[in-house]
């Protein structure tokens, strides 16, 4: 009987540690909305580099932090609470490596098409390129992944991957209402 109790305690401790370890280092590649951009550091030039990686636990905390009395705060909180991962890479790319980066973008595009991502936007003009892909849930048609790959004339490249339940309508509404600082301030973190 005592051995059984000891074994139960040991198993409980082990499962607790396993759960803790899983939360600490979750494998996001299992989510269909996840995109692996690979190593982008080789294209980064200068100091204007922003890397943002916010995991599920931190997003939950942010959702709690954002929750307020207003409906708009609650809408934003619900939106953030439904997300699993946010990854943003913005950097300046040198003219010499711009071609190489464009090739990488094409490879990622191919990969996304294979994985049945839907292209929402493809804009390409005068040295600028913008690609927006969305991944929808097969059963509910909800957006569960969003990927943006954009390179502008000045060589500013942005790679964004948002994993989770994404409500585009709420994003559109709230971005105007909250007066959220835009692209320029993202670099000044």
């Amino acid at each position, binding site marked *: 009987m005592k051995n059984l109790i000891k074994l139960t305690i040991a198993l409980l401790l082990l499962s607790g540690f396993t759960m803790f370890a899983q939360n600490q280092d979750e494998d996001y590649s299992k989510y269909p909305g996840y995109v692996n951009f690979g190593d982008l550091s080789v294209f980064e030039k200068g100091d204007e580099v922003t890397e943002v990686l916010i995991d599920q636990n931190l997003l939950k905390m942010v959702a709690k932090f954002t929750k307020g009395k207003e409906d708009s705060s609650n809408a934003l909180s619900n939106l953030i609470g439904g997300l699993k991962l946010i990854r943003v890479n913005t950097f300046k790319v040198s003219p010499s490596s711009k071609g190489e980066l464009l090739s990488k973008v094409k490879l990622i595009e191919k990969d996304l098409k294979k994985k049945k991502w839907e292209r929402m936007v493809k804009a390409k003009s005068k040295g600028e390129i913008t690609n927006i892909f969305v991944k929808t849930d097969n059963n509910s048609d909800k957006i569960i992944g969003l990927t943006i790959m954009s390179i502008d004339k000045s060589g500013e490249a942005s790679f964004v991957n948002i994993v989770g339940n994404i409500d585009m309508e709420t994003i559109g509404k709230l971005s105007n209402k909250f007066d959220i600082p835009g692209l320029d301030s*993202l670099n000044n973190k």
Partner: protein
Amino acid sequence: MNQKLENQIISVAYGDANIWQKIKIMFLAKKNKDVAKLLSEYSKTAESVKKLTVNFPDGILENLNVQPSKTKPVKSSMAPAFSFILNRPVLSAATVTAVLVIVLVLLFSGRSQNNYGYTEAQIKLADKQVKQTLALVSNVFNETERTLEKDVFVNKVGRPLSQSVEIVNNLFNGGSRNEKLN
């Protein structure tokens, strides 16, 4: 007097009765002389029985074949550690204090780190970054919409379309003029 009451008196006299039975019989003995007499008699008999000594014949105990119990006494491996701590008041007090301190530290550290091990500063920074990311997404969509409305529809679709209409108009106008001339 019934048999049940007599049995209870015997139990009280031999000291086998519980406290309630004892009180009940004492109370009855005070009220009823027969009960008091019977209790006194049985008490005297019980005293004489207790004084009896039993002498077993030589060797009878040795001849008894008593099998030892097969079940081993259960002794916890932690028992020496527990007895070592519990037998020393200072050590046990120190252990209790240490356990309390650990529990309190865990509780308060968990509260300040919001369960996931993130500090308030980290959450505030993440909040800012999440909003900036959403703004970035929104900006890209707005920019695309603007390009579509101002550049694609106006310059790439509207202008060639109006030029085509103008050419057709001119052709028609020219054609009607030619018809008049003919």
